[in-house]
């Protein structure tokens, strides 16, 4: 939660995330302090030579696309992050990535939208999107509009039946304040294997520092776990995994465990644009773990497409009508 990261899982994912992260960078000076925008960068960690090959592949990929990165070997990784377990093979530093606090970022974006004339209605549930445009509310009344946009994330299939979006549950452990314990968002390279994994429950280590010194420890992925309750077996796995990278974490105070659901699609790309139901029902959903990262680019794409303007990146890969899954750059 809160990680703004450029990802290289596929060309389409790279295009969307790099476009969006640069939009965030442009917006950063305007963001109020409660959004806690922090350009701390991402450190992708490699534990062995096999993962170092992945580091080198990523370095070539990012560099050839003008994303500044730096390969760190052994000792340099320890200097970048002194609390890491000794013996890391190395890592890739992506200084352009950042973190922020999504609820307040959403609040900021909402205020901007309202200042531009958008109207906010809270406490009203949409029963269905109308094919002729607009929505029907749960009290039976209708709001007429040219279009409706379903951006309800894990709940989007409720409004758009047959949408290939599934809930993927995640856990986070939030620590007390330990400023400087980690300096970057740290992600194990196995994160990619986990995000790839189709149906098994999986964990992968990542940790995000907040400006106030608290840390968010993740991550876990489960399908078919719809409740908000904490699942002790997967929490255990997640924490044990984290301790393999940051053994000092064991002793730190945790003050909260949080669960949430991501909106996952079969090809790991979001669905952005008109739906298959009607060209007046639009979709912006299925962002999996990259919701906050790609939010700005998603908004821009929707606006540009709706207004008939050229989009900054091709929107085809995110179309609801795409038939074949995108080729991944990994196996």
């Amino acid at each position: 939660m809160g990680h703004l990261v450029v990802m290289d899982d596929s060309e389409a994912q790279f295009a969307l995330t790099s476009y969006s992260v640069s939009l965030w960078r442009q917006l950063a000076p305007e963001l109020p302090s409660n959004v806690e925008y922090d350009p701390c960068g991402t450190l992708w960690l490699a534990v062995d030579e096999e993962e170092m090959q992945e580091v080198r592949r990523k370095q070539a990929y990012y560099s050839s696309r003008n994303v500044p990165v730096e390969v760190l070997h052994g000792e340099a990784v320890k200097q970048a992050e002194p609390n890491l377990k000794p013996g890391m093979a190395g890592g890739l530093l992506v200084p352009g990535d950042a973190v922020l606090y999504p609820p307040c970022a959403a609040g900021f974006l909402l205020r901007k939208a309202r200042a531009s004339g958008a109207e906010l209605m809270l406490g009203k549930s949409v029963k269905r999107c109308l094919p002729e445009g607009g929505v029907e509310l749960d009290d039976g009344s209708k709001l007429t509009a040219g279009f409706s946009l379903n951006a309800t994330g894990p709940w989007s299939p409720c409004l758009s039946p047959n949408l290939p979006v599934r809930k993927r549950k995640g856990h986070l452990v939030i620590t007390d304040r330990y400023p400087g314990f980690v300096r970057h968002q740290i992600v194990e390279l196995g994160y990619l294997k986990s995000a790839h994994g189709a149906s098994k429950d999986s964990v992968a280590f990542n940790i995000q520092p907040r400006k106030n010194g608290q840390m968010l420890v993740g991550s876990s992925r489960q399908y078919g776990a719809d409740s908000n309750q904490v699942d002790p077996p997967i929490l255990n796995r997640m924490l044990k995994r984290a301790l393999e990278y940051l053994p000092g974490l064991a002793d730190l105070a945790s003050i909260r465990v949080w669960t949430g659901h991501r909106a996952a699609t079969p090809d790991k790309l979001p669905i952005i644009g008109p739906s298959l139901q009607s060209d007046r029902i639009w979709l912006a959903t299925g962002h999996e773990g990259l919701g906050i990262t790609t939010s700005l680019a998603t908004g821009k794409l929707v606006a540009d497409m709706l207004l008939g303007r050229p989009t900054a990146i091709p929107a085809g890969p995110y179309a609801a009508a795409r038939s074949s899954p995108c080729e991944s750059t990994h196996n």
Partner: protein
Amino acid sequence: MNDSKFDVVIVGAGPAGIAAACSAAECGRSVVLIDETPWPGGQIWRGRQTSSRPKVATQWIDRLHNSGATVLDQTTVIGSAGPGLLLAESKGRPCRVRWDKLIVATGARELFLPFPGWTLPGVTGAGGLLNLVKNGWPVAGKRVVIAGSGPLLLAAADGLLKHGAIIVEVAEQTSWSCVARFGVGLCRRPGKFFQAVNLKFTMRNVPCTYESWPVRADGSEKLQHVTLTNGQRTWHHDCDFLACAFGLVPNIELALCLGCEIKNGFVDVDARQQTGVKDIYCAGEVTGIAGADGALVEGQIAGYCAAGADHRAEALAGKRRSWHRFGSDLAKAFALRPELRVLAEDQTIVCRCEDVALGCLKTFSNWREAKLHSRCGMGPCQGRVCGPAVKEIFGWELESVRPPISPARVASLIAED
């Protein structure tokens, strides 16, 4: 002590927990009594030396030591790791305790109502200051103002006087006639009546005011000055401590986490102290504020019933009803006046962990929104101080509770299987 199993596990070693442990152990069950602190007695029976404790406390604690119950001190329950399995942290190490029957006797904490300057060092809870003093905090010769409502004000004054404090004033927010009516009602309870008479005598030289309350605390880096009012005029005192007692909030977090029903903010139990969750009982202040006497009765009932000796619990039914009546008399006599809910100004901090002021909170419409956008309640106290305050000020209800119900080391969150 890891992964041990007991017939009856009791959380909280205050009067209710101690009584429950004695009762269950004396019926032959294997019992463990878990408490966060190094001392048995909870909040009300705190005392390093037995001389600081009332006789009844010493009697029960001696009985506990002779009962055969195991005491697991310096152990914080973090949550439930599954049916019949508690996750805890004992002296900093992960710990699991298996139970057949569980008795939650987690007591209550003080309610804090924000007012300008309440975050200064020196502003404390009344019971809180007394406990600190009993554990060595120097108060001899220090000037103390005690404000709020209820018998705890006098109990705190009495205890602090014994440790050499100068009680500058006791400010009771309810009226003299409410207190007098309550005092007369105590005639039905001779023990409590004599307690009250004794207190009044000890306090004969202490200035007591009624229908008065604090409006601000001032000082540079620590408390130096308190302003009080009765709604018509204000007056000031130079002092070192302002000990506040606005009321008690039950510690329902563990019960909530275990799925127990909550009614009017307290854990809902039947006459056998059973909650709606199978094999889970609840006793003491967490089911309703009625003081140590009520807690002892409920603890015994829960202990006997958890041990399968319900017939022994039946004999206590009358006393239980009686102490429940005392609890409602208490709540009626010392109900908080509305002025206390509006003492805070826009720049007064309400969430002390995250420094969120009242003015910021006014922009939200419920607890969840406030938490998400201002981080109120998201700090290490997990909303224990600001939660009850915003409930009084805005009427916002607490949401569900997740483990860890108390901050715990990351290693302690891992429940090995």
